[in-house]
């Protein structure tokens, strides 16, 4: 297959419709960035959930050596823990539960502080400074009073945290932001699709004579479609590259240089940002190449 023609056509096509291609690239850029941000918000929500517990959870903190609650006489004993677990398991409001050891709590704290934990925390800070906990999943997140009063006051229980009050607003904000960004992305992606369709229609019209001759002399379908497909791929790559840059900038300036000093919860890191960029990189080419495949068939009748 001689590719000279394909590349000449590609160059001409890109030049001929430069404003249209720019419109596609910019729309793709904005919508893919929003898709990426939506992904990041989802991952942020996952981090929050991992850290705070789910919205329908109640966390029971068990005594450690430093606990000052009246139910604590030093660290919780295995017998006390077993008794508390029995109460939890027998309670009709609980769907299930799991125990988080002091070691797990320590790992979580280290993640929260990131690499700075060694400098920001006392040198002898270790698992023993943290409390073991029981995370109770509720059957119905509106019903927790029974189980809370049943556990409260048991020996070995330091305190109880009702995740619903603490985590609820955070999830609400994250959820709304996620829905907002994905909805906006959806509308923009529709716009991108329509722009791609228009570009193909214009190009097909501008090249109807060439295409007609190509069909007549027996050029293969793929050969006729190739300049269109490559154009679609190039606009997609440009859109994805811009979105990747924007998402990286967001990760660096808004998260790492921005909110990460607030030790509220673990924030999305570079691994998460990469995942968001991957989502954009997969979606971008699909959005331009698939309509091109469908529409060239329609407009070129190849």
């Amino acid at each position, binding site marked *: 297959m001689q590719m000279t023609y394909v590349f000449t056509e590609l160059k001409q096509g890109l030049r001929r419709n430069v404003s249209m291609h720019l419109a596609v690239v910019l729309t793709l850029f904005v919508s893919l960035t929003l898709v990426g941000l939506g992904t990041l918000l989802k991952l942020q929500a996952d981090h929050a959930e991992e850290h705070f517990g789910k919205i329908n959870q109640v966390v029971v903190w068990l005594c450690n050596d430093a606990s000052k609650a009246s139910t604590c006489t030093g660290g919780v004993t295995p017998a006390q823990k077993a008794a508390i677990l029995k109460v939890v398991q027998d309670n009709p409001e609980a769907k299930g539960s799991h125990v988080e050891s002091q070691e797990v709590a320590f790992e979580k704290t280290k993640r929260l502080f990131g690499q700075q934990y060694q400098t920001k925390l006392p040198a002898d800070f270790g698992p023993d400074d943290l409390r073991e906990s029981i995370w109770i999943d509720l059957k119905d997140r509106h019903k927790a009073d029974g189980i809370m009063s049943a556990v409260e006051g048991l020996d070995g229980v330091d305190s109880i945290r009702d995740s619903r009050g603490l985590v609820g607003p955070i999830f609400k904000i994250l959820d709304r932001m996620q829905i907002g960004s994905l909805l906006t992305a959806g509308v923009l992606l529709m716009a991108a699709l329509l722009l791609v369709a228009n570009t193909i229609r214009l190009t097909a019209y501008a090249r109807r*004579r*060439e295409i007609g*001759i190509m069909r*007549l*002399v*027996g*050029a293969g*379908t793929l*050969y006729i479609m190739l300049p269109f497909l490559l154009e679609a791929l190039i606009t997609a790559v440009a859109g994805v590259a811009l979105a990747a840059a924007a998402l990286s900038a967001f990760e660096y300036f808004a998260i790492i240089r921005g909110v990460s000093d607030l030790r509220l919860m673990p924030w999305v890191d570079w691994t998460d940002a990469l995942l968001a960029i991957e989502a954009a990189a997969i979606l971008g080419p699909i959005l331009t190449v698939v309509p091109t495949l469908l529409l060239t068939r329609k407009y070129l009748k190849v």
Partner: protein
Amino acid sequence: MIRFEKVSKTYPGQDHGALDKVSVDIEKGEFVFLVGASGSGKSTFLRLILREHSATEGRVHVAGKDLNRLAGWKVPRLRRQIGTVFQDFRLLQNKTVAENVAFALQVIGKSRADVDRLVPETLELVGLSDKADRMPDELSGGEQQRVAIARAFVNRPMILIADEPTGNLDPATSLGIMKLLDRINRTGTTVIMATHDAGIVDQMRKRVVELAGGKVVRDEARGAYGYEN
């Protein structure tokens, strides 16, 4: 080479057919004029050979292939065996004469060596060797049609279809085009030409197939444009 067996073609949304049980047999190397009033079915006949449309009924065989059964992806290969020339030339205005002819080879993936050999050879055949670097708008109508014929013939097709190739040309120029088509026919290429040009048909005395209302009303071996009384 080309065989129509009781071929009917009805376009969607039309109640009477463009072709009605047409049976025609065209041998390899024949020169056939297709005549008839506008709307008689000439263009449909040519389109069926090119497999731009499929027959509603009956069978169309071209170069040994049953076109009703030909898979879509094999159509390009069929078309490489057929050259096509139109009344309006259909040249690419942004390409030179040589580039227009080369285009037909490049897009079917011929090697540069083939292009470099076949294009000058074909331009020589149509008598345009000295105008290879001209743009189409610098040429006369007759010369443009020669370029179109060169493009149709450069791949040495077994069949050449010409749809009113002299429709836009004066009689003297038309004669030149006919001589060229005749020369191509003598190389063994089957030529089918749809025309309204009575003078040419009468002069050439080739086989004439006349269509009227989608039916073959006349098929004469050495015919004239109209009935001779």
